[in-house]
Structures are given as structure tokens and as C-alpha cells.
């Protein structure tokens, strides 16, 4: 029978299937960080259990580590305790951990792919909702809760009811200056934050095929923001080229065996999805959010919508509340919104391509006087590579701050936070009330829009900028 990509990967991982019970799936890679793992390890200890497969378990410190003075002890006591607990748990249970200061330390969803541990056809879980990122390789990857983390530690399996499947086909190609971030923000605005609920989504079509691996990660990363269980892209030559040669990629004849297998991981001709959505890439333009969830977005060329004009009562009430919180008036052109802080980073847009894109825009330009630019690489390796390419100097010369790796202002668990009432343009994935600091207001944007916004101090795209003064570049 013709099967979808998701069904193939699922079927390959079923350890046990019984009527009326969820399937028991084998987990190929379990990623761990300091915030959602402490109780899982403690539960394991209380029950006298061990980590079943330390060889398939990888830990890193990311959510609340500082991004300055990383060689100093962590000042915040709660953060320090969580990080210390992860370190002692990893030591006791024999789990590989990349700590602050280690070259492989970074956001868990940046580290897995970078090490070549994220490969096509795998099942990957982590106590973090943006685990969907890894689906870019054609893996089934999703976030789990702390009790499930304990379950995976003890059994290397997870009990799951098979989700339905959805195809999101993006025809054509994205215009210059339009990124995967704009595409996914436009998609969420159309589908709503619950539109993907209960589905594994496969992104396909010419526009998706022509995306780089990192852009595919951005796309899959935000699957959870419209409710999908997971997002996937079928592996192809772009995928194989990205994985090849990385630290944990197969080599020699194992590589050939792996590729031979991965090539079969595509949706069969005639396979049926439970739901299909089609988008035209050419219609997507730089996209930004105006509200307090990722579905409240408009093209940058548009204006803050008038809640009264929204057909759905629920949407109308939500929009009114959002505008109140965001302190925005209906009808304001998005380009007129002044921004205090620009954040470039996170597991959505904190990889090297994102930093290159942002650097290319600010090169030879200056960050606006009343605006702050914070650049936080997704991993230490990304930071080092960027420094190798001189990107840090570009940001610093423009007046930006260059930081150590971590989640940072994506969720404001460390000291990188917005002040109450402050407004940000952020390349992260969530614009919830207070997400980046209590009372902070967030506009989600692409790295290109973020960089242009830093220069003008208002939401902008690179095409809004006068030509750079190359004499100072």
C-alpha cells in the first residue's frame, strides 16, 4: 500500500502495537536540557532505575544559561541549581553532556543537527516543544513532558497514538528577500494556531525542495506554533550533503547503506494524506506579527488589523486583547512601529545562515540610536564559525551586542529580558505575553527583517534601506 513519509518512519519504529493501546515506538535519539529533566532523573533514581541507552541520549545546557561572562559561576540561583543538577545527573547516569564553555554546547535543536546526530528516518524526542525542528531531515521529532522524559530514559521507547497526516505543498519559489520564516508565519496566519492539531505535517513542493537545510529547520521548528505534532521534509540530496562528513554521520559503506535507505523515505505516489493545504510561494512577502500569538501576523507592507473587521468573534476578542497588550492602534502601518530591541537568535533563526543573512544587512551600517541589537548564536560552534567569518565584528561595528550561545531572550529565563513595555523584533518563535520578559512586547520577524529593523529602528526590510556606506564597511 502506498504510504506517506510519516507513515514509513512511524512503521519502522513500532516496537509493539496492540488494539486499543497506543503504539510503543523506539526512540533513536533523546535530547535533554536542564529545565525539563531534573525530576525525570530523580524519578528514575527513586525507582532504582538506570538510563537504558546512554548511547542514544545527549544533554546540553541551553535554556537558562547566561550569554555573558560564561566562564563565571551562574549568578541566578534557580538557574545555577538546574544546571548543576543536570551536570550531576549526567555524571551519575553516564549521559554525554555539553556544558557551558564546551564547543558543542548550545540550543539542543541546533546541537543535534550540527553534530550529525539528527539524520533522516529517525525518531527524536526532547522535553521541549521545538523538537519539531529535527523533522527537517525527514525524522519524526516531537516534544514530550517530564514524565515522558523519565519513560524514555528508562525504556528508550515512548507510547504514542498515531497522528493523522497533512501535506502542506508550497508551489513555485520564494522571491528574493523572502525566507522560510516569512513562509511559516504566513502559513500560521492562514491556518491559525490550532490548525495543525493532531497532525504530522509534511512540507513539500518546489519551494520547500529548494530550501537549504537550515531554512527547512526554521520551517519545521515552527510546526508546533500552529499546533502540529511534528513537521517533516522528505530527505533529498540537500539533506545528504548536509549530513555527510559530520561527526556522527555514517562513513564508508555504512554511508552508502544509509543513503540507500534514506532515499526510500519519500511519500509514495498515490499515498493519501488526511488533509492537504496548498500555498503559492510567489504570494509570500516579508511577514511580521502584530499580536500575542504567532498566528496574528500580516505582511510587513500591511497594517495592524482592525479587530472589528474580523469575522470570527473569538478572533475579534483575542485581537482586541492583543492590541491592548501590544499598545497598538488598528490601522497603523507595520513599518511605522518603532522597536527598542532586536533579537537575532533562538532555535528558529540562530544558525550560521541566519547570522550571515543578518550580518549582510547591517554590514557598513549603524544600529539606530534608540535601538539595541542583541545577537545570540544558537550554539558555541555557530559562534566560533561566525567569528571565523568576521560576522561578530560586523555586528559590533554596527553597534550590536555579540553574545555566547543559548536560548537567551527567546524565553527570558536568563538575564536577557525585555523591560516592561519594551518592544522587540525577534527572530524567535513565540510572541506570547511576557515571553521575553514581563510586560515585553514581541514582533516575530525573519533575520533579514530583524537586521533592517535594527538599522532603521522601525520594522523594515532590507529593501527599505538606503545603500550602505561601503567606505566604513
Amino acid at each position, binding site marked *: 500500500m502506498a504510504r506517506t513519509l510519516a507513515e514509513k518512519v512511524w512503521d519502522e519504529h513500532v516496537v509493539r502495537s496492540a488494539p486499543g493501546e497506543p503504539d510503543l515506538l523506539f526512540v533513536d535519539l533523546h535530547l535533554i536540557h536542564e529545565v525539563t529533566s531534573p525530576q525525570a532523573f530523580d524519578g528514575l533514581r527513586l525507582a532504582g*532505575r538506570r538510563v537504558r541507552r*546512554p548511547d542514544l541520549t545527549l544533554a546540553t545546557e541551553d535554556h537558562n544559561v547566561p550569554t555573558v561572562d560564561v566562564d563565571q559561576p551562574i549568578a541566578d540561583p534557580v538557574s545555577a541549581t538546574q544546571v548543576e543538577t543536570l551536570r550531576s545527573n549526567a555524571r551519575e547516569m553516564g549521559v554525554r553532556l555539553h556544558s557551558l564553555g564546551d564547543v558543542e554546547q548550545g540550543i539542543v535543536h541546533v546541537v543535534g543537527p550540527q553534530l550529525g546526530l539528527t539524520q533522516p528516518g529517525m525518531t527524536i524526542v526532547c522535553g521541549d516543544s521545538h523538537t519539531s525542528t529535527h523533522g527537517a531531515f525527514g525524522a519524526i521529532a516531537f516534544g514530550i513532558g517530564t514524565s515522558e522524559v*523519565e519513560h524514555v530514559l528508562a*525504556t528508550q*521507547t515512548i507510547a504514542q497514538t498515531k497522528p493523522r497526516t497533512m501535506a502542506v505543498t508550497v508551489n513555485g519559489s520564494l522571491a528574493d528577500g523572502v525566507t522560510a520564516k516569512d513562509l511559516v508565519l504566513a502559513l500560521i496566519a492562514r491556518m491559525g494556531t490550532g490548525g495543525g492539531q493532531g497532525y504530522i505535517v509534511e512540507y513539500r513542493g518546489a519551494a520547500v525542495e529548494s530550501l537549504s537545510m537550515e531554512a527547512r529547520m526554521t520551517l519545521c521548528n515552527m510546526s508546533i506554533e500552529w499546533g502540529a505534532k511534528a513537521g517533516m521534509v522528505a530527505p533529498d540530496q540537500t539533506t545528504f550533503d548536509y549530513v555527510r562528513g559530520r561527526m556522527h554521520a555514517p562513513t564508508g559503506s555504512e*554511508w552508502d547503506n544509509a543513503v540507500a535507505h534514506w532515499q526510500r523515505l519519500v511519500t509514495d505516489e498515490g499515498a493519501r494524506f488526511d488533509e492537504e493545504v496548498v500555498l503559492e510561494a510567489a504570494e509570500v512577502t516579508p511577514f511580521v506579527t502584530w499580536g500575542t500569538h504567532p498566528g496574528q501576523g500580516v505582511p510587513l507592507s500591511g497594517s495592524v488589523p482592525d479587530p472589528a473587521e474580523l469575522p470570527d468573534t473569538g478572533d475579534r476578542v483575542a485581537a482586541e486583547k492583543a492590541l491592548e497588550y501590544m499598545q497598538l492602534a488598528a490601522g497603523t502601518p507595520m513599518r511605522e512601529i518603532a522597536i527598542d530591541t532586536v533579537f537575532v537568535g533562538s532555535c528558529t533563526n540562530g544558525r550560521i545562515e541566519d547570522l550571515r543573512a543578518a550580518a549582510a544587512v547591517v554590514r557598513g551600517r549603524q544600529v539606530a540610536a534608540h535601538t539595541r541589537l542583541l545577537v545570540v548564536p544558537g550554539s558555541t560552534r555557530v559562534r566560533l564559525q561566525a567569528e571565523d567569518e568576521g560576522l561578530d565584528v560586523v555586528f559590533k561595528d554596527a553597534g550590536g551586542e555579540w553574545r555566547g550561545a543559548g536560548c537567551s531572550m527567546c524565553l527570558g529565563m536568563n538575564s536577557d529580558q525585555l523591560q516592561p513595555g519594551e518592544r522587540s523584533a525577534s527572530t524567535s518563535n513565540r510572541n506570547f505575553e511576557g515571553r521575553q520578559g514581563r510586560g515585553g512586547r514581541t514582533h516575530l520577524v525573519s533575520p533579514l527583517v530583524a537586521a533592517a529593523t535594527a538599522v532603521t529602528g522601525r520594522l523594515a526590510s532590507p529593501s527599505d534601506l538606503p545603500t550602505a556606506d561601503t567606505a566604513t564597511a
Partner: protein
Amino acid sequence: MDRFTSLTGTALPLRRSSVDTDQIIPAVYLKRVTRSGFEDGLFAAWRKDPDFVLNRPEYDGCRILVAGPDFGTGSSREHAVWALQDSGFKVVLSSRFADIFRSNAGKTGLLAAQVDQEVIERLWADCEADPALGVTVDLERREVRFAEVVAPFEIDDYTRWRLLEGLDDIGLTLTHGAEIADFEANRPAWMPSVL
């Protein structure tokens, strides 16, 4: 988790309905990084009152909590179950439980047994009259017994079976250990390892 067949002990009469999980354990007690030690947060706000039933010495050592309807509503925090267990409770009796609390309880071995509100009222009265009254909760027979009262309680078959067998989610999965081992033996050689 431990097997549960039948338990006889004293009961704590909590004369309140709609006890939400924020009352069971307020958010400030959730910062801990361990799975144990949550007893200090149990009903923390109410315990500031020295007359609160949990503070009264005659109820020391109770293992059965008798609460009003709609117990465990609100936030899904599993800590609510842990706080009760860490305080020594093995059973909560109520005439109606919030779904998420009932499911969290079943996963970690706290018996959430649903009885008629009349039984709750009678238990409240009897336990207040005699804090040393012995109450038996018999999971095999699905019965609560005290004084001359024998009352049935409701629990779904699957949760009952798991409690009787002492199987938490992990224990249950580990009963399929052979299947997991089989699967592991057949994974392709090129699959990555972090070591």
C-alpha cells in the same frame, strides 16, 4: 510503584469542594528539582491556619483523604499528586475528580476512588467524631468499609489493574522488555550513537 490491594488506616476529613491544584500545592513550591519533598507545599495556604484539619495532631498519620466534589481541578501539575503522596496519602476519596488529576494519580500510584457524596458526608461526620476510626479501602472488591458501612467505589478497570499489579507507565512498558530488546537487536548498524 508499590502494589495496592487493600489499605486500612485513618482518614482526614477535608470539608471542601472544588479543591484545585493551586490549593493542593501553590506554584511557588514547584521550583524544586527533585521528585520528592513536596509535602511542605501541601495545602500550604490553608495550613497557615493552625485550626486547619491537617494541622491537628489527632489526624497525624492519616493515609486517606476524604474531600468534597471536584477535587483536583485547574492546572495539570503532577506535583499535586506528588505532594499528597509525599505527605503519606495513599488514597483520595471524592464524589467527583477532575480528569487530569485522576489520570496523574493513576500514573504514580495514588488511588483516586470515587464514592457517592452521601458516603463522603458520612465519613466526614464519623472521622470528626472519632479521628481514630479505621477506614478500609479495598481495591480488589472496590469497596470502602468503616463502622457498619460498606460502600462501593468507582475506578476504571485499567487503572485498577495497574494499581493491583503495581505498574506505573514505565513498569508497564518494561513488561514488554523482550520486545524492546528484539527491536534494538535489529536496528541498522549505521544508526548514530552519541558515544
